[in-house]
C-alpha cells in the first residue's frame, strides 16, 4: 500500500498517471516516478509525501487531489482510495480494479473505461464515462456509482457497463448511447438523444425529447436513428 499526500497547494495542475501498480515498486522508484507539473517533468517525491506500507496494490491519496489529473488512467487491478477530491480524467481507460473518491470528482471520470468500478461519494462533474473527442465509443464496461450529483454529458456513446447517480444529473444523459445502463435517481435534463440501445432509468423529472415514442413502461427511441433505447421511470 502506498500513501500519497500533496506537499503544497499546486500553482497549476499536476498530471500524475498513477495506478495501484506503483505500490509494488520500490520506494526509490516511487519517489522518482515522473509526473507533469505544468510543462516541467518532476519527480513524484517532489510534490507528494510518500509512505509505503507493504506491497499491496493499493493507493491512498490523502488530501486534496482536485488539481491532480489522470489518476488511475488505464488501471487494470488493485484499488485507489482518494480521501478528498480528485481531478479530471480519473479512471479514464481503466479496465479493472476499484477507485473510491470520498470527495468530488472532476470532468471525464471513467472516460472510455472498459471494466472495474468507480465510486464517488460526493459529486461528479461532466462527461462521466464518455468518449474522447473523435472516438466512436464511450464507456464499454464496469460500473460508476456517484452518490451525489453529476454534471452534463453523462454516458455519451456508451456501449456497455453501468452508471448510477443517486442525486441529480445535468443535461444530455446517454446521448448516442448504444448499450449499457444509466440510472439517475434524481432529476436531469435531456435524455437519450440519438440513443440506439441501452436503458436509462430516471427517478425524478427530466426533459423528454420529441423523438421518443411512448411505450408501456416508458419511452423508446431515438426514432431519428431507428433506436431501440429505453427510458424508464423508476
Amino acid at each position: 500500500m502506498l500513501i500519497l499526500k500533496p506537499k503544497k497547494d499546486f500553482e497549476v495542475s499536476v498530471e500524475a498517471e498513477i495506478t495501484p501498480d506503483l505500490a509494488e515498486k520500490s520506494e526509490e522508484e516511487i519517489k522518482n516516478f515522473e509526473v507533469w507539473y505544468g510543462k516541467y517533468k518532476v519527480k513524484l517525491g517532489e510534490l507528494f509525501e510518500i509512505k509505503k506500507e507493504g506491497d499491496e496494490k493499493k493507493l491512498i491519496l490523502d488530501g486534496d487531489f482536485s488539481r491532480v489529473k489522470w489518476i488511475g488512467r488505464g488501471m487494470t487491478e488493485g484499488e485507489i482510495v482518494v480521501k478528498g477530491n480528485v481531478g479530471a480524467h480519473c479512471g479514464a481507460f481503466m479496465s479493472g480494479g476499484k477507485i473510491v473518491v470520498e470527495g468530488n470528482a472532476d470532468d471525464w471520470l471513467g472516460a472510455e473505461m472498459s471494466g472495474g468500478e468507480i465510486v464517488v461519494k460526493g459529486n461528479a462533474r461532466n462527461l462521466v464515462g464518455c468518449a474522447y473527442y473523435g472516438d466512436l465509443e464511450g464507456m464499454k464496461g464496469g460500473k460508476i456509482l456517484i452518490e451525489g450529483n453529476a454534471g452534463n454529458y453523462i454516458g455519451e456513446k456508451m456501449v456497455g457497463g453501468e452508471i448510477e447517480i443517486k442525486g441529480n444529473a445535468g443535461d444530455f444523459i446517454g446521448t448516442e448511447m448504444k448499450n449499457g445502463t444509466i440510472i439517475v435517481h434524481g432529476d436531469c435534463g435531456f435524455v437519450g438523444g440519438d440513443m440506439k440501445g441501452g436503458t436509462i432509468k430516471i427517478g425524478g423529472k427530466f426533459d423528454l425529447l420529441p423523438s421518443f415514442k411512448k411505450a408501456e413502461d416508458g419511452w423508446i427511441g431515438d426514432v431519428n436513428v431507428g433506436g431501440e433505447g429505453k427510458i424508464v421511470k423508476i
Partner: protein
Amino acid sequence: MPIEVEIITGRTIDQGKTVEEKLTEEYFKAVSYCELNEEDFRSLGLKEGDRVKIKTEFGEVVVFAKVGSVPKGVVFIPIGPYANQITSDDTDGTGMPLFKGVKGVVERTEENVKSIKEILGVE
C-alpha cells in the same frame, strides 16, 4: 418585488461600434443596460433611465433598464463586462461558458451603475 428571469447576452450595433474604444463613455453606454419585456418592465415599476439589479448564482450587477423586444421572463444584456458579472463561468466541460440562458432575478434598485473600472476592480 424581484422577478425571475432567464438572461441572454448578445451583440448589438452600438457595442460593436465601440468595442475598440472600451474606455469611452460611448462604450459604457453601449454595454451597461439591459432590455426587459414591456410587461416585466411595468411590473417592476420601472421608467426609462431607472436601474435594476440582476442576480444569478454567479454574481450580481446593476445596469440601466430599457424596454426591448424580448419575451416575458427574458432579459437581454449586450455582451461586455456588465453581462459577465452574472453569466455562468461553468463550461460544462465544453470550454464555452453559458453566456445565454442563465437563470436569475431582477429587481428595481436605487444603487448606481458602476463605472467600467469599478466593475473590473481596478479603481
